[in-house]
């Protein structure tokens, strides 16, 4: 009999990078040392520590990374506490990929892109951004607005500074919530920063962050004249199966695990306000 989709494979955590005081990035390969599976930017995977639990995480690495998968994970519950306490070399379980992912090869192709992220919300966008960088000629201008509570809370700060910021055609706009002595960049919340930047409304927007940031940034984009059909986000609800069967991640008729996690705002408008 075919292996059930609920049964995971064993993976090995080969590297753990501390990004911020509460975010670490975990590099995962299969027992054969290879990347466990291929994915589309925006897709997720179920990771588990047997005896602790299983939870869904977005895949942070780009599909163009052929050797491993990476997950940037914020410490905020049982499974993530355990992951944060572990040492490299330990094994976990992994199954996936799940979800629809971003339309990187269709709707995004040829477009000028605006990425807006807050805090750990950069994790799912990281995969898209690096995919777009890899296939740079397929996309137009790329602007990245990224904010967090403090300088220390900016995920992937070295990569942003040393790689993203230095590439032609990519502009990075960082902001932190409150002044810090060593920070000479923008200070303020993401929604207000987006208003100040007043990006071109022809841009396709990819947004992820805490609900309050999404709410006010969406309002800012509406005021600037953006169309909801060109704004994408990725959702997160509690899941057990990630297969559309355990029955808990639905928003009305749609299951975030299989119909999402990526939705356009005009698609979300069709769903009841229960997320």
């Amino acid at each position: 009999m075919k292996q059930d989709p609920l049964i995971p494979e064993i993976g090995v955590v080969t590297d753990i990078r501390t990004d911020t005081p509460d975010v670490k990035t975990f590099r995962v390969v299969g027992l054969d040392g290879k990347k466990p599976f291929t994915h589309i930017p925006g897709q997720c995977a179920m990771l588990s520590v047997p005896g602790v639990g299983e939870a869904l995480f977005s895949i942070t690495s780009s599909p163009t990374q052929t050797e491993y998968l990476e997950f940037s994970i914020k410490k905020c519950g049982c499974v993530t506490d355990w992951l944060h306490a572990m040492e490299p070399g330990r094994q976990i379980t992994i199954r996936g990929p799940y979800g629809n992912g971003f339309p990187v090869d269709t709707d995004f192709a040829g477009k000028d892109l605006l990425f807006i992220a807050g805090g750990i919300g950069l994790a799912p966008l990281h995969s898209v951004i690096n995919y777009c960088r890899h296939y740079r000629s397929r996309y137009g201008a790329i602007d990245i607005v990224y904010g967090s509570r403090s300088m220390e809370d900016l995920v992937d700060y070295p990569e942003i500074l040393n790689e993203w910021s230095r590439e032609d055609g990519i502009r990075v706009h960082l902001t932190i919530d409150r002044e810090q002595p060593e920070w000479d960049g923008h200070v303020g919340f993401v929604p207000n920063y987006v208003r100040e930047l007043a990006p071109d409304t022809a841009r396709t927007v990819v947004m992820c962050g805490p609900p309050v940031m999404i709410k006010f940034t969406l309002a800012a984009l509406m005021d600037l004249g953006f169309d909801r059909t060109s704004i994408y986000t990725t959702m997160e609800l509690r899941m057990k199966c990630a297969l559309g069967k355990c029955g808990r991640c639905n928003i009305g008729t749609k299951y975030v695990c299989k119909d999402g996690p990526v939705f356009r705002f005009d698609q979300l408008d069709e769903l009841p306000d229960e997320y």
Partner: protein
Amino acid sequence: MKQIAKTELDTLFAAITAEQKLYIPADDSAGQAQFTLWRPGLALSGRLNTARSAKDLFFPQVENLVGFRMHAGAIERVETREEPEDFVIFGVRACDCRSFSILDRVFLSEPVDTFYQMRRAHATVVTLACTRPEETCFCAAMGVDAADPAGDVTCWLEDGTLLWRANTEKGEALTEKLPMLRPCPADAADAQQARTRALMQKLPLAKLDLSAFGAGKTRALFDRPEWASLSEACLGCGTCTFVCPTCQCYDVEEFRDGSSVRRFRCWDSCMYSDFTKMSAGQPRPTQRERFRQRFLHKLVYFPENNDGVFGCVGCGRCLAKCPIHMNIVKVIKTLGVTHA
């Protein structure tokens, strides 16, 4: 069509049991009917339906998925799946039989749930037509014909005779192994069917109006103020989901014993407060949202995703069992009144 005298049921059941396991509705010590493994002398319950639905036999309340053995940071995966023997479920009512086709839409759609699929493949479903529906029955409103249930075999109990009709290859295969079944006229069940159908039409809930529900009705129903009063007394006990033949939500949990871990799944309920609770928040913070989810799922979301089929079979168990006497019929009647 075949037949056998009701007094010979033991002979029939014994012949089935010679080849495979057999479950029949039998009264337990509390006087409730439950699907029970047949043994000589076990009598068929006279009750209309089992207290728990027949879904247990395909989607058990608890089932192991996989095991893990942990040693020095390494994980070894341990197979825990047990292939069941072939089995026959006898006496499934039309409503519960319909519930199997609803569960099939969930578990047999891609990606297929192989645990459920395995049990379905091993089972032969023998249904039993109803003759004395109860006041809580509303299967007719859900498009179920209690007088002619589906299944691999359909049976009718009539005046001391059991009528037997094979419907599928599986049903034919079972019938061939049961020589005690004697041929009888093809219309032997017709009179009973006509009587039952006439009776069904007289039931208080037979004409339940479902026109306000189904695909595309989310917007019209989601923000209706009545959800507050309908859910006000709900205890969130989950009894309705427990007895429901179509409720299929599950949890995945683990049991740890030293260095070995058993991952299992068990029934869960959207009526429970932690069903959707996350470290990041709670999309259904009060019983109102949980209650609304359960009924909109059965009456709108499920039909929208499944060719208009409602996620309810009208068995009436939730009407009989809810401790505060709330149920899907009251929801349908309350929200079915459309406001201009």
